[in-house]
Each structure stands twice: as structure tokens, then as C-alpha cells.
């Protein structure tokens, strides 16, 4: 399974990088879908098939389709692609990349240091176990999540209304 993990991880990183450097919104979205699917593969390799499916269906499916709809409504053409290129000269990348590299430079050593202490193999956790948790101790969180979705629905309708 570890091959699956590394392959998925690599695809995820590369496609995510491609998302943020694209000038065409639709291309970026396709790469984002690819990235999310790769993460789904990673989930599967980690022994979490349930969330892997949810990642594919909800994230890569539903949410990205929503994005796509909006992009289509905006109907951004060649002019917007040229605009994107004009907005992205190499120099604008310098400062954010430097900051993030510094951040990573501090973060990664820490990660490897901690994990080295507790290195145990992954165990598969299936749908049954997740459902038992969800409707057991976390049932209130599920209810709150439904409230959140309802609120999101109403406010999205209200905001996007003409």
C-alpha cells in the first residue's frame, strides 16, 4: 500500500502546484480535481476507505462542480487569462515563497522529530467504526454540521440573489 501512498502524494503535490500557477481558471479546476482525487487515493492507502470515497464524491465531485458552475456563470474569456498573466510576474512569487519556505523549514524538522518517537503501522478503520463514532459521541457535532450547512445554504442563496 505504501507505493499507493507515495504515488498519490506525489501526484497531489504536483497537481496542487499546477493549480496555483495556472492562468486559466478551468485548467486550474481540473488540476484541483486531480489533486483531490490523489488525496482520496492517499486516504485509501492510509486505510480510510470511507473518507476516500467522500473526498472523491463530495470534494472532487460536488464542490468542484459548484466551482465549475460559477466559473461558467462568470464566463471569463481570453481577456481574463491575459489579465491573470499580467498579474503574475515572477517577482510576486518571491516574498510569499520565501515566507512559506522558512515556515516549512521550521515545520518539517519538527514533524520528523516527533513522529520518530511513535512509529507504528497503520490500521484500517472502516465505515462501521466511523459511523459508530459519528452517531455515538459526535451526534451533536453532526447536528451542528447540519445547521452549518443550512445556514450556508440560506446565506449563499441570499447573497447571490440579485
Amino acid at each position, binding site marked *: 500500500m505504501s507505493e499507493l501512498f507515495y504515488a498519490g502524494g506525489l501526484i497531489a503535490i504536483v497537481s496542487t502546484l499546477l493549480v496555483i500557477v495556472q492562468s486559466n481558471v478551468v485548467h486550474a479546476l481540473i488540476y484541483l480535481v486531480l489533486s483531490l482525487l490523489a488525496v482520496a487515493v492517499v486516504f485509501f492507502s492510509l486505510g*480510510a476507505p470511507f473518507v476516500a470515497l467522500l473526498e472523491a464524491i463530495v470534494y472532487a465531485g460536488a464542490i468542484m462542480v459548484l466551482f465549475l458552475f460559477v466559473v461558467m456563470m462568470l464566463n471569463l474569456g481570453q481577456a481574463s487569462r491575459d489579465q491573470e498573466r499580467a*498579474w503574475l510576474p515572477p517577482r510576486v512569487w518571491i516574498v510569499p515563497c520565501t515566507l512559506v519556505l522558512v515556515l516549512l523549514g521550521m515545520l518539517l524538522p519538527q514533524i520528523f522529530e516527533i513522529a520518530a518517537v511513535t*512509529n507504528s503501522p*497503520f490500521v484500517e478503520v472502516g465505515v462501521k467504526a466511523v459511523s459508530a463514532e459519528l452517531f455515538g459521541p459526535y451526534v451533536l457535532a453532526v447536528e451542528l454540521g447540519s445547521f452549518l450547512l443550512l445556514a*450556508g445554504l440560506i446565506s449563499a442563496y441570499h*447573497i447571490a440573489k*440579485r
Partner: protein
Amino acid sequence: MSLIPLEHGIALAGLLFAIGLVGVMTRRNIVFVLMSLEIMLNSAGLAFVVAGAHHASAEGQVMFLMILTLAAAEVAVGLGLIIQLYRRFKTTDIEVLSALKG
């Protein structure tokens, strides 16, 4: 059963998060900014799942579900805002939204 070290999973989440962060800081198109935010949220979810798998616990996946819910709601509202913004200003440039200027 699996031989994937924990730190590799977490490092993957960290890298994805970092990439998303660069996107948020760099892009001017608000659609890209929103996509970058999605990447960051997803990487956070990934970190939960990795940790949950490491402890052989379902709670990591439960948290991912919560994040998924949050992301769905956030995207819905965010896209609504993008549409409204485009109607008002005929642009997707976030630099136009500078009413917070002091």
C-alpha cells in the same frame, strides 16, 4: 498492516498546506484564492485522517467529515460572494475590494 511512517503523511499535509498558502498570498483572482483556501482546508483534513489512521481511531475521519461540511458551507457562501462581486464591479480582482483602507 501498512508501513507508511506517520511523518510522511503529516509532511504531505504540511506541503499541501504550504502550497495553498502561497496561492492565497500570490493570486489576485478571487476564484483562485478560494481554490487555494480549499487546498488548505483539505490538507488540514488530511492531517486529521493521517493521525487517526496512526492511532487506529475513527475520530480522525469524523473530524475530516466536519471539515468537509465546513468546506461545503464555506464554498457555497464564498461563491455567492464572488457572483455578487462580479455583478457589482465586473471584476474578480480582490484588490478592488479595498474599502478597509485606513
